């Protein structure tokens, strides 16, 4: 059987280094299979998060050969096997152990977002077109790869000021829900730090669900914030009404 070398980060929050493991490569094998092989045969305490192993739960995110990926969807035969395949934890989150990072910050950000609130007296009739329009945002599996690559978080660590692409996608899914009656524009501007995003589209590139995060979620939300807070006519109108 063919063999490959996996160069995997081993360590905790303080220190660590990569360690090489030789694994047999079966047809169709994915990187997560290789990590399971290492756990089962070579390093039983190798820490890896995973659940569905089918690209549906978003648990097994890591950086494979420098690229943020779901390891369950990264085929070994798509990677050059004449050199070691490096597998590192997501860089933007504090390390716990090996490939497992502390992603709890994301769950704290999510708490800030007011949930769906139906408009008063709404009739529960929706057209399929409206469902299709928001579907894209609602298929997010919370793998946090977009959070991991966003330079506002990765290079500048603005976790206190900036919610990150995942949560702009979530807000878009709520704001564009056909029956939702709440505006989250103020929240986007003041608490979620939408203005920090300078639309470099790194998030869109790594999304395993192929959500057009920048074009379809972030830019329309930026427009909403502009309409609500910076539009001269609206501003004038507000002034006149004293709000």
């Amino acid at each position, binding site marked *: 059987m063919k063999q490959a070398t996996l160069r995997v980060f081993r360590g*905790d929050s303080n220190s660590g280094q990569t360690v090489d493991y030789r694994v047999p490569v*079966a*047809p*169709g*094998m*994915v990187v997560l*299979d290789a990590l399971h092989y290492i*756990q*089962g*045969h070579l*390093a*039983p*305490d*190798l*820490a*890896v*998060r*995973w*659940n*569905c*192993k*089918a*690209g*549906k*739960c*978003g*648990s097994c995110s890591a950086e494979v050969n420098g690229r943020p990926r779901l390891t369950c*969807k990264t*085929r070994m035969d798509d990677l050059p096997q004449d050199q070691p395949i490096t597998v590192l934890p997501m860089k933007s989150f504090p390390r*716990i*152990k*090996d490939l*497992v990072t*502390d*992603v*709890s910050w994301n*769950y704290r950000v*999510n*708490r800030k977002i*007011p*949930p*769906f609130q*139906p408009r008063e007296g709404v009739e*529960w*009739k*929706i*057209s*399929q077109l409206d*469902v299709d329009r*928001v*579907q894209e945002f*609602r*298929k997010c*599996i*919370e793998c946090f790869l977009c959070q991991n690559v966003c330079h506002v978080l990765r290079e500048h660590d603005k976790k206190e000021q900036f919610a990150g692409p995942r949560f702009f996608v979530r807000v878009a899914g*709520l704001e564009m*829900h056909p029956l*939702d009656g709440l505006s989250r524009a103020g929240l986007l501007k003041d608490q979620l730090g939408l203005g920090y995003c300078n639309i470099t589209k790194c998030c869109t590139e790594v999304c395993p669900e192929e959500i057009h995060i920048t074009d379809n979620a972030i830019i329309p939300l930026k427009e909403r914030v502009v309409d609500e807070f910076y539009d001269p006519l609206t501003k004038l109108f507000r002034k006149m009404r004293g709000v």
Partner: protein
Amino acid sequence: MTANYETREHDVLIIGAGGAGLRAAIEALAQGASVGVVCKSLLGKAHTVMAEGGIAAAMANVDAADSWKTHFRDTMRGGKLLNNWRMAQLHAQESPDRVRELEQWGALFDRTESGDILQRAFGGHTFKRLCHVGDRTGLEMIRTLQDRGVQQGIDVYMECTSTRLLTDNGRVAGAFAYWRENGRFIVFKAKSIVIATGGIGKAWRVTSNSWEYTGDGMALAYEAGAELMDMEFVQFHPTGMVWPPGVQGILVTEAVRGEGGILRNKAGERFMEKYDPKRMELSTRDVVARSIYTEVKKGRGTEHGGAYLDISHKPAEYVKKKLPSMYHQFKELADVDITKGPMEVGPTCHYVMGGIRVDAETAQSTVPGLFAAGEAAAGLHGANRLGGNSLSDLLVFGRRAGLAAAQHAKRSSTPSVDNAQIEQAEKELLAPFSNSGTESPYAVHRDLQEVMQNLVGIFRTDEDLKKALAELAKLKSRAAKLSVEGSRLFNPGWHLSYDLKAMLIVSEAVTHSALARTESRGAHSRIDHPSVDPVWEKKHNVIIRESGGMSRRELPIEPMPEELKQILAAESD
């Protein structure tokens, strides 16, 4: 001595954060209880997230003739009459309201022309009944529930594993758990506990289940004195992926057949014509799984030992829209474009109909204060579950469990936790670090999966099942000599050591029950007893812990009220 654990207190503690656990939490909170939810993974990663096909509810949006009565009848017939009829009735009556509620909390489903929730056909359902959103219904459901729960104020303990229920004079008093991240201990005090931990599929080699489905909730309940019922009924989903090897067992949604997918063997024959000419591909899961298995055994399987499932006769755009995740799954993992050619599929261990025996109205087990809902509980599905009845089960009985657990907590005084039980739980959990043993938990797990796969699979015999019991006894003694490397910091080998104990308990319960039931019914097929036995139609197998070990008894089924008998016997309403 200072305690080497932290302590938390809740009126209601819920173990498991899939659909049932979250729905229970929301309801208990609405009743004014303080609620803690403990889950082994991150929030939102439970198996509910993978549910694809839809939620069965007789809303009659597409087929106006549908009603709870037809749904009740379909469920009972699909379950080969072994279902708890009261649960089947409540489920059929309440699921439409549970779906509407989900919609009011923000879930979005696909729509009909007139703007109502769209419903699709599924195996064993007379009418188009499954509310869905493409093939990612479970994701929509779990996000809706998790956001609702979090906003309402549940406390979530993520990546935390419960290893023992604490009792106070026979009633529930709390749970002992550890944080997976750092291995530290935590003791929960609670007046009521809801087990919503899902299934047991990880005990088989070919399974659609993730690492979490080790039967740990059932094992916790069993050890606390609760009863496990109908454990012989394990559902093998007819369509899992078979190739390449790494993806073997991953689920291929029944929605493929619901949308018109056709099964064929190597020779191109549409073989369901032989096994169920009336319902064909949309026969019940037990029948389709056995049909595929039989075709393969008779040498008519595909190159990699499965059957062909073909949806490519439908327009490519339609397939991509209605089955988007299937399209991507096959394209990325198997290099197959399902809009152009067939998939290769075969049975995969998917679901257990059996579980903790509970009261139909309250979801309470035989242990006071201990409740169970969802896959961890027995009763609703009888000998075979219909597709789509699982998500509705989670909502209907999750809500009922949460309600009853909160009411029970209101009536109860604060129980006291027993230090001796805590110390014993600590000792047991840490044993693999100090054992002189040499057994690897991974190796024991692999061997367990082989035993269950080969001897307690789709078709069973007396000889195989007895052999399985002997093998399980050997595995148990090996499991007593586990040794783990490394520290308590996020250590999967150590985590598996406890999961293994739970898997061995439920595997033994399945095998004992399967050996006793000398008939074939629903998902339980005995080659040596190929027909239905009317005597066994009247009783359940119940597994209980006694001082000498696991013991089995038979529990007569309660007679069905006349009114339900008539509904069941009718051909339509």
